[in-house]
């Protein structure tokens, strides 16, 4: 355990050092990413005003809060995408990882965890500007701030496991991007990324309850916005643990078979 903590700490430190080298690229990446929620925010705020001040209980101030918190949650759930997996295998980087006496999952998990600290530091001034411009309504309670801090990392783990599993398809087919596009569409619809889930049709909310997407997105945002009761918060955190463990179970289940397959794809 001590050795693993030492590894995570060292790998995270290294990720921070590396990502500081890419600070300009990271900023442009973040600015590009922020365009998406700002568009949603402008559209939904306009709709809310046109409907007399709110839509489904969300005022323009609530929408501003939702989409500003959205930017933090989105930064926190950046993980190794299947697009990168293709290069990861083809360029032989996975070979180098496999030579080490440590599952490559740990290296990636720790690396992206370290990256988050750089992204959060860069996000703060952008969040300040968005707050001044859009005037969010955000009055969280202390318990929900604490639960939000845990859920941010829980959401990261859920999305990490899902996309790691998706990336593992690369061992069987060399073009996994098509699967990712499908995943992205489902995520957009069922996660609360496009719009708060409570504004979606009833059937979408019912289907979303059986899928993992909202636990990496909408749940975390609604937690800070004070839309959830303590019981709902606990249920959500439990769902994050459940989906993370389920993802880990399937990663372990398919990993040996994937490595056997790796032989045939290239190293």
């Amino acid at each position, binding site marked *: 355990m001590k*050795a693993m903590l*030492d*590894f995570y*700490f*060292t*790998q995270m430190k*290294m990720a921070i*050092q*590396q990502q500081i*080298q*890419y600070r300009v690229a990271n900023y442009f990446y973040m600015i590009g990413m922020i365009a998406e929620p700002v568009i949603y925010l402008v559209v939904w705020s306009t709709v809310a005003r046109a409907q007399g001040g709110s839509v489904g209980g969300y005022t323009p101030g609530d929408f501003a809060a939702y989409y500003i918190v959205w930017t933090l949650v989105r930064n926190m759930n950046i993980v190794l995408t299947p697009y990168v997996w293709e290069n990861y295998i083809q360029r*032989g980087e996975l*070979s*180098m990882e*496999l*030579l*080490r*006496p*440590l599952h490559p999952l740990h290296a990636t998990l720790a690396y992206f965890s370290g990256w988050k600290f750089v992204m959060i530091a860069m996000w703060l001034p952008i969040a300040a500007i968005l707050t001044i411009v859009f005037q969010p309504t955000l009055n969280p309670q202390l318990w929900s701030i604490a639960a939000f801090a845990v859920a941010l990392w829980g959401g990261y783990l859920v999305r990490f496991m899902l996309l790691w599993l998706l990336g593992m398809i690369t061992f069987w087919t060399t073009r996994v991007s098509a699967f990712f596009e499908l995943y992205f569409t489902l995520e957009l619809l069922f996660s609360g990324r496009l719009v708060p889930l409570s504004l979606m049709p009833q059937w979408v909310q019912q289907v979303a309850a059986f899928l993992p997407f909202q636990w990496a997105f909408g749940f975390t945002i609604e937690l800070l916005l004070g839309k959830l009761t303590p019981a709902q918060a606990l249920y959500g955190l439990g769902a994050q643990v459940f989906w993370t463990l389920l993802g880990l179970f399937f990663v372990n289940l398919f990993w040996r078979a994937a*490595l*056997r397959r*790796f*032989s*045939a794809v290239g*190293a």
Partner: protein
Amino acid sequence: MSGKKNGSGKILYPDQATIHITQLEKYYIVPEREAGLRAAVGSLFRRKHREIKAVDGISFDILPGEMVGFLGPNGAGKTTTLKMLSGLLYPTAGEAIVLGHVPSRREKTFLRQITLVMGQRNQLAWDIPALDSYELNRAIYQIPRGEFKRTVDELIELLDLQDIVRKPVRNLSLGERMKAEIAGSLLHRPQVLFLDEPTIGLDVTMQRRIRAFIAEYNRRFGASVLLTSHYMADVVALCRRVIVIHHGRILYDGGLSGLVEKFSAQKTIVLTLPDSNIDLTSYGAVRSKDAGRVTLQVPKSETSRITAQLLADLPISDLTVEDPPIEEVIEHVFAQGAEAAA
């Protein structure tokens, strides 16, 4: 338990060898089609596959502390073998045991004792100094801090890395990067080194430096080394034993000198004459003429007779009989292998 002879004639048993492989095979199934749109459309309905025998039933043993050159032309199966021995690839058939472990099981205790250095692959992070990547390796291999510091200092001194390890890796020359890569691969003091073209693309001075380092590492830690290189100078400097592989099969396993003996049907006679314009074609094939120095190639069995005749017929001031350069012998072996496989 059955034993077998290695190049030096010593009987080896699996439990004595660091590396023991028997009838190891690796076959790939690859899709295949003709060029063009018609073939592309046709392949949608009827896919053709071909079996490639990358490694085709090879067997050998390597003893603790032994350094062995693994030679073969491109596509011979060298890298595939190294990848199977380091646990990256699953063999199709056969047995491989390295340090008492089956590599494909990828046990942590096994991975902690080996390293694979590939001349064209990076393990160091690109944007930060190598020292930071070394620190990560310390955490991965759980090297105690005191031992880690001693090893890093030692490697820095041996490879002359003082300034190199403090610069971002992207700012290093190819040779500097390679030295830094090798140091990074040895921090955990592996007992088996798989070196795949470790000197590729390096200048002669850097090649020599890396060779000297590998020899020193082998001497200090008694590590076994399996080395592939297209530079015969690497092999000549480091390995007394070579294994030649071609089309996935072993053509030769034995001493380097034995390779020349077995595969070279020629000898080289170097003459020093007052006049190098004399016609010597009746004695043998003239390979070069340079300021009174002539190099002749003659059949090995005829060497004594032709030497005597040259000394009797010509005003020779100096004469030496040599084996042909090892590169030529290897080229000859590969050519023979290709003919045999055709």
